[in-house]
């Protein structure tokens, strides 16, 4: 079985995610796009694991999911805090972290 289709799908998902991060202003959407990128990576991991016939890739996919979940918690908390202080979820507005 060829992994090509899975890889192709993974690349497409990753590209969509990347473009989403770059063009959308809403923090929630950006966040979802990041999740999309992570999951596209997961897909590739699982596909390769399947291809090589071992479990390494699957294990890593689990790791990624756990880390992603933790990150979502932190990330959403930051977004909520931002929204509370600025009444907006746009990521272009909070630019205090410049020089």
């Amino acid at each position: 079985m060829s992994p090509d289709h899975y890889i192709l799908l993974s690349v497409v998902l990753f590209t969509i995610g990347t473009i989403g991060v770059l063009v959308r202003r809403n923090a929630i959407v950006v966040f979802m796009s990041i999740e999309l990128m992570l999951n596209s990576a997961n897909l590739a991991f699982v596909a390769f694991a399947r291809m090589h016939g071992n479990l390494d890739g699957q294990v890593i996919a689990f790791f990624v999911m756990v880390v992603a979940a933790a990150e979502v918690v932190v990330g959403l908390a930051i977004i909520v805090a931002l929204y509370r202080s600025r009444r907006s979820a746009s990521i272009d507005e909070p630019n205090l972290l410049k020089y």
Partner: protein
Amino acid sequence: MIGTGAAVMTDTAPVVAPLAEATGVFSYLWLLIALPLFGAAVLLLGGRRTNRWGHLLGSTTVVLAAVYAVILLVNLMARPEDDRAIGQTLFEWVFVGGFTAPAALQLDQLSMVFVLLITIVGSLIHIYSIGYMDHDPDRRKFFGFLNLFVAAMLLLVLADNYLLLYVGWEGVGLASYLLIGFWQWKPSAAAAAKKAFVMNRVGDVGLSLAIMLIFITFGTVTFDEVFTEAGQASESTLTWIGLLLLLAAAGKSAQFPLQAWLLDAMEGPTPVSALIHAATMVTAGVYLIVRSNAIYDGTIFALTTVLVIGVITMFLGAIIASAKDDIKKSLAGSTMSQIGYMVLAAGLGPVGYVFAIFHLLTHGVFKANLFLGAGSVIHAMKDQQDMRRYGALRAVMIITFLSFASATLAIMGIPPFSGFWSKDSIIHAAFEVSLVAGISGMLAAGLTGFYMTRMFTMTFLGKARWEDDQHPHESKPVMTIPLIILGIGSAFTGMALLFWGDIVSWLTPVTGLQENELPLPTIAYEGMTLALVLIGAGWAYAMYRRDVPIEAPQDVNILTKAARNSMYDDAINDVLVVQPTYSVSRAFVGLDNKGIDGVVNGLAALVGGTGAKLRRWQTGFARSYALAMVGGAVLVVVVLAVVRLP
């Protein structure tokens, strides 16, 4: 120049024998140094508690050392002539690889006479100081320093190797520094002390290098071993060692060109000038040269240089002494000149070594006498040192007058006073080697007659030129008794050493002795010298007997002007050494602050500045950062792909 013409009459080489073990009375040799050192430690560490009896302890230790020295002398005389060198090793001091310098003492004929001079004259000066420093709140400290000096000086002459000698050498330098600057709230005294130390350090460079050269040549620094092997070294090596030792001697003994510190050193209390800057420390250079005679025997060039330096300083000192109005500075000039005689004698080689030491001993006595006499006068005149404000003191200070007179006759070389025997021996020896040296010695003797008579006349004779509030009086017995003893010493030391002590054959085993034949009988040289002395003395008497203006006349010839300014030695040193050093120092400070540190701070500023520029890239837009990340990732992929291609 050396060894012209005259036929050799006798030629005795130094006895080279291993040192005898210190036993019996000699086994306490270390006590000589330990006694005054103990005094110094108690007085300097004990603080104010010892104020009441400090001066007594200080004097006692030196007197005890003197008593022990006499006992040693008696025992040393009882031994056979070729077995009078005693060695005592105390402990291992410096030892690394092949280099060893033990803390070991050596008492031989040469050290013995020095020990006697230091302890006996030292005792008298200590006792005198009890009176002289009576009113000084820091008298205890003064005695502590004096004791320290005596201990260091004894170490200098008793050391059995060059490195240990160096310790004594610098120890006396330290004591001299402390005592010149004893009244250090006076900026002039503090400056003089520093000047003395630093100029001596120039000499120390010579001593350090000489010791190193001796070690790499002979593999040892012990006198005994070095002198045994000296003959095997090449002449150029010996010449270098000889010149370096001469540099050391010039520093310590205020010889040309390192003479400038001695006149300033007169800032110290007068007993210090007597002990350190007249009788003992400043003669250490002569000791060093005579001690190293085995080295100088192999190098005519170094020996001749010694001779030349001696002659130059002899005249330099005499000229300065003839023009100074400050009694102590005039005496200091005279000291320079007399040490010049000794160095001249040492520069004659085996012909003169013995007489250098002979003159050193008699000079130690009569110059101490002169300084203490001057101190008595200064005390009486309420610290006035200008001889133009003296005059007619004979009437009020009869003991000082008589003792000073004895010493004056001694230094002028009037028979039968001490100086006659020693100085004439030197002049005679000088003629044996070189006509020029001999004539120089005679002329300087004439100058001695001039400046001493000038000093004597201005101080004790003529009319009183005192200031209104001065009521001179004779000093207390504690001061006059040492003066009396020294006065007698000035008269008879020469004869005693020559006839009773037989100084010449006493020292010969250490220094060797060579006598050359002279064209004229001895009496002829003595007669000529005496005639010159009397001419000088008569001239001075005629000049200063009557009227001495209180203000020094300004319309004087160039030589007098130069002599009043100590032959411009300070100006010369300033232009040649001091100012250039400070200029370089300032330049380097600038270089360090602006140059090297500038580079360092410049680098820091560069990093900081670059950071400040790069900061601008942090726009704060999260999506720009994301774009940069993507761009970076793409770049990495592209690079990877390109690199993988072939």
